[in-house]
């Protein structure tokens, strides 16, 4: 159990305000939350960068290595069969989590970045031509900018960027105006990692589909905070990563519509993704193996399955309600601090608060509050064009997960007063 300092207006430590959400019990599931840094209880508010892992995930990974480990899809022995079953069961867990029609539509990758590169490298290279336009938004993470720039340099495609307003809202009318006869793909975020803005993903997809344009959604944050139903969203591609979803590092997911994945050429060649190989000709494996060359991150994928089971058991709606309550509380507390500006006040936001302070650069803010045990991200959040949009080089960002508490937000606010004291 972590000991918190009391703040006069702090909410009761273990109450999230959501009647049946027991955040103290949730915290007890995360071993790392018991530790201290610099002698202070860890206040981990860097969840948008990577989330901590529940014991269920840690135990699953250990159990696989201790009892059930072998390579998958090869080796006619007991353990290979057991590992294959567990890996494919994780794929089914992911399928159900995003409500895909078939496990053939779930490709395991290294991370969301690789999933986007897969789409750019396979779909983009095969089907996009010189002059074709790819529509992205101002809020994209570098992972959803650079792969398209590489494709631009190779194929001569054109990037179009949807603007945002000063609050960080996705400008839908401007988006619709960018959709034209040369638009070949829309690739936008479901939720901004730097601002928290949740985009109108369903409407984005519908507007593109009305014009026959496929859509990729970057769900790195969306899969964590928004709840994903790829059929309801209508997305053609949806990507996310395991480690932000309380799962292990090293595994990500590409959901792709089966008919599109079927038409796409392989992204990488190697073992796993073939049916037969001769020196003259290779016959590729069926989906999803066609896109999983080499030994996959099988233990990480099984761990991701355990993470999804964990959050599903907690209840995605209850987690979302808890996070929204934290977002509202943090927005109020931080808005009250003198000289602090919240960057990103969109109407629909995930539990992410980016901010700057008049007295100190975000890196100095990060260093000072780190000494109080508070971990936030300070920097450009791999979204430099977005930082330029707001005329800053960096922000500090507090991002809240399912185990955070209002008391931790009070500690953050108090630490930020310390920044003011030091620099003011």
């Amino acid at each position: 159990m972590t000991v918190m300092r009391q703040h006069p207006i702090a909410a009761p430590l273990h109450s999230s305000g959501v009647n049946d959400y027991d955040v103290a019990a949730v915290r007890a599931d995360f071993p790392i939350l018991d530790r201290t840094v610099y002698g202070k209880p860890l206040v981990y508010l860097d969840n948008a960068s990577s989330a901590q892992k529940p014991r269920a995930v840690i135990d699953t990974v250990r159990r696989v290595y201790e009892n059930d480990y072998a390579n998958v899809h090869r080796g006619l022995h007991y353990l290979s069969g057991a590992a294959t079953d567990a890996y494919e069961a994780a794929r089914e867990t992911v399928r159900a989590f995003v409500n895909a029609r078939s496990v053939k539509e779930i490709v395991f990758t290294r991370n969301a970045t690789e999933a986007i590169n897969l789409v750019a490298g396979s779909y983009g290279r095969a089907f996009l031509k010189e002059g074709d336009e790819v529509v992205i938004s101002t809020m994209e993470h570098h992972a959803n900018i650079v792969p398209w720039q590489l494709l631009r340099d190779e194929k001569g495609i054109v990037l179009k960027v949807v603007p945002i307003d000063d609050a960080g809202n996705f400008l839908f009318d401007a988006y619709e105006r960018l959709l034209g006869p040369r638009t070949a793909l829309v690739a936008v975020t479901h939720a901004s990692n730097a601002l928290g803005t949740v985009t109108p993903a369903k409407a984005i997809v519908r507007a593109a589909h009305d014009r026959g344009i496929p859509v990729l959604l970057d769900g790195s944050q969306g899969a964590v905070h928004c709840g994903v139903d790829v059929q309801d969203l209508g997305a053609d591609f949806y990507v996310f990563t395991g480690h932000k979803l309380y799962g292990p590092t090293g595994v990500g997911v590409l959901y792709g519509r089966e008919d599109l994945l079927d038409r796409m050429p392989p992204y990488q060649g190697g073992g796993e993704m073939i049916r037969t190989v001769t020196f003259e000709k290779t016959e590729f494996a069926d989906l999803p193996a066609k896109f999983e060359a080499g030994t996959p991150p099988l233990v990480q994928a099984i761990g991701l399955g355990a993470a999804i089971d964990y959050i599903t058991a907690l209840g995605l709606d209850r987690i979302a309600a808890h996070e929204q309550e934290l977002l509202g509380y943090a927005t109020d507390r931080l808005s009250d601090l003198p000289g602090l500006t919240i960057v990103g006040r969109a109407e629909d936001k995930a539990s992410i608060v980016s901010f700057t302070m008049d007295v100190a650069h975000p890196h100095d803010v990060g260093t000072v509050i780190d000494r109080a045990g508070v971990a936030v991200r300070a920097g450009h959040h791999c979204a430099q064009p977005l930082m330029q949009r707001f005329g800053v080089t960096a922000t500090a960002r507090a991002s809240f997960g399912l185990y955070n508490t209002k008391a931790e937000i009070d500690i953050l606010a108090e630490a930020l007063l310390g920044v003011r004291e030091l620099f003011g």
Partner: protein
Amino acid sequence: MYDDLRELYQEVILEHGKHPRNRRQPAGCNRHALGRNPVCGDAFVIYLTVDDDGVVRDCGFKGEGCAISMASASMMSEIVKGKTLDEARRLFETFHGMATGDGEAVDTDGLDEDDLDRLQALSGVRRFPIRVKCATLAWHTMQAAMDGVNEISTE
């Protein structure tokens, strides 16, 4: 507030961070370099005016960064003025040692005691390994300018 934070953010650092000196391109500038820290996005251009005898007649900078990087650039621009290129290099070596905490071997003979004391003020950064590059960015960039390299990246 914690002691190591006070040691890092000393008054002189905060003061230089808020009111940096020589934030300009000096007249007659004949060497310059752009230095970037790709991790945080900080970028500085360092300008030098070096005369025929190899003496730094003026030094200025442009750019934006955290208190540590701004203070370091500002203090460096004051310290290297009037120094020979060789002295400037040795000051950097000395400072690099102070900032990283492994500077015993540097020969400080003939370097100005006052300069060394001023650099010492920034050496609190050695307790914050993630921030060492903030303190050394301006110096690395100045060295690049002296070497005729126009762009560097710390990483």
